[in-house]
């Protein structure tokens, strides 16, 4: 939806628009009345959906004392809705979402209840869409969405082949990194990829610009870490797994992929297999959950 053209001198700030609607500036008066009535009845039964029934109800109760003027139930729901949609769209680009951006573009003067808003948004994202909102690294104040639904091959078909072929290249690089001991020099990566017909300087039919993909796009999306190795001449860089990789996949999954490619068993690489097992055990241990924003 576009903002209504206004003659104000200020640039079309989102926070400004939000203030308009929060002051009851909704032009749709009849809908407002209906919507105000339905929450009490349909929300009642809505509260019984799934195991998360208590949190929305409980959280709503605790949102009753805001710092900036009284906010209605509807305003809060609208705010959560905005936040959910913002996170969904931003995540489509696979770039981690900064807390500062969320505050600036969506939360605005609801800043005081930001942690609650985020918790509600996370709950909705999980229940309705099947996405888990996680912080990329503890205290990083950046977030990504993890799909709790397993990707299925036929999805690409149904998507009309809009799927990402670049994932294949990423998996190869992730496999390489893991098998070589969790870190690998860039020169070694290209040595390997050359054998597959992928070159840093040549345009690739499927991957386009492989150098840009690996050293820029995957890094920006936080799948890879790319660091300069000091005192190297000519300059060389090293690759490691990025924080998103650890959240979206695991050493065991990557090892299984490598094994499949070689038509072998993961156990054929005992060192990596042990490492992957240890990683699985680590993951099974209960972690501190939730996207709890560090304040």
């Amino acid at each position: 939806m576009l903002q209504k053209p206004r003659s104000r001198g200020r640039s079309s700030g989102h926070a400004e628009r939000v203030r308009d609607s929060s002051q009851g500036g909704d032009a749709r008066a009849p809908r407002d009345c209906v919507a105000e009535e339905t929450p009490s009845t349909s929300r009642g039964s809505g509260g019984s959906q799934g195991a998360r029934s208590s949190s929305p109800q409980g959280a709503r109760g605790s949102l009753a004392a805001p710092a900036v003027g009284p906010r209605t139930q509807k305003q809060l729901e609208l705010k959560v809705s905005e936040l959910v949609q913002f996170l969904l769209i931003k995540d489509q680009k696979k770039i981690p979402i900064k807390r500062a951006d969320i505050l600036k573009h969506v939360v605005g003067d609801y800043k005081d209840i930001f942690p609650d808003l985020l918790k509600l948004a996370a709950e909705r994202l999980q229940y309705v869409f099947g996405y888990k909102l996680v912080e990329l690294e503890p205290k990083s104040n950046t977030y990504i969405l993890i799909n709790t639904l397993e990707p299925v091959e036929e999805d690409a078909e149904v998507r009309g082949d809009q799927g990402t072929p670049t994932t294949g290249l990423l998996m190869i690089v992730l496999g390489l990194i893991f098998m070589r001991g969790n870190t690998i020099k860039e020169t070694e990566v290209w040595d390997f990829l050359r054998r597959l017909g992928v070159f840093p300087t040549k345009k690739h039919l499927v991957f386009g610009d492989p150098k840009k993909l690996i050293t820029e796009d995957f890094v920006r999306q936080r799948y890879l870490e790319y660091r300069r190795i000091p005192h190297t001449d000519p300059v060389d860089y090293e690759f490691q797994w990025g924080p998103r990789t650890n959240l979206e996949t695991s050493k065991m999954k990557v090892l299984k992929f490598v094994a499949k490619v070689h038509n072998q068993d993961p156990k054929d690489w005992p060192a990596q297999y042990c490492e992957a097992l240890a990683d699985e055990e680590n993951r099974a241990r209960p972690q501190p959950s939730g996207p709890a924003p560090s304040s």
Partner: protein
Amino acid sequence: MQGSARRTGVMTDVHRRFLQLLMTHGVLEEWDVKRMQKHCYKVHDRNATVDKLEDFINNINSVLESLYIEIKRGVTEDDGRPIYALVNLATTSVSKMATDFAENELDLFRKALELIIDSESGFASSTNILNLVDQLKGKKMKKKEAELVLQKFVQNKWLIEKEGEFTLHGRAILEMEQYIRETYPDSVKICNICHSLLIQGQSCETCGIRMHLPCVAKYFRSNAEPRCPHCNDYWPHEIPEVFDPEKEREPGISKSNRKSLRSRRH
């Protein structure tokens, strides 16, 4: 919206996968949606009977209600194909477009939108849109860049391009109808039959009322002497064919008289 007697539905992984896939596409034709629904059942719940699409979607919509979004069904203006998209119900600043495009790009869209709404045919020429490039808010945009941005809008299914002219994609109409009616109450056109927003259509040359092409097709079906529903004058335009879901299993452009309809005066 729904009355208070509605019970909120339950989401399962079948519904979630469906919703995710619909979001990826932005907008889908009905037969694609049905195929996608079957696919989701196959993945998560092989043995279950596939719900009737309408019930399936109503179930999801009852859950989406608290988020002020819904899966909306519409019909393409040129050949009456049913389409589905996830749309915003609340008029707020955060939307799919606002987050995807820069300020000057959004303003370009706004300018194109205004030209489209003001036009008689529902189309705005590329030249006319590009001539407004100097008036855009935000970073300065050259005409060359604006051409690319317009193509981006087409790729993302906000605009349709035909022979150098642009009109709104069915997705944009679904998503923005309310916004358009509120923002341009004086220039907006409404269909006399279905009372929804009208961008492309036919109009009576005597009294000026307008109708969507699919609405014309349905209203005058098997009528040898079509007459204006308002002033009863002879209806001067060629009556298009109704989209028949049974006859056409294939997606894409129906063999309908697309070109001839476009070039007609309204």
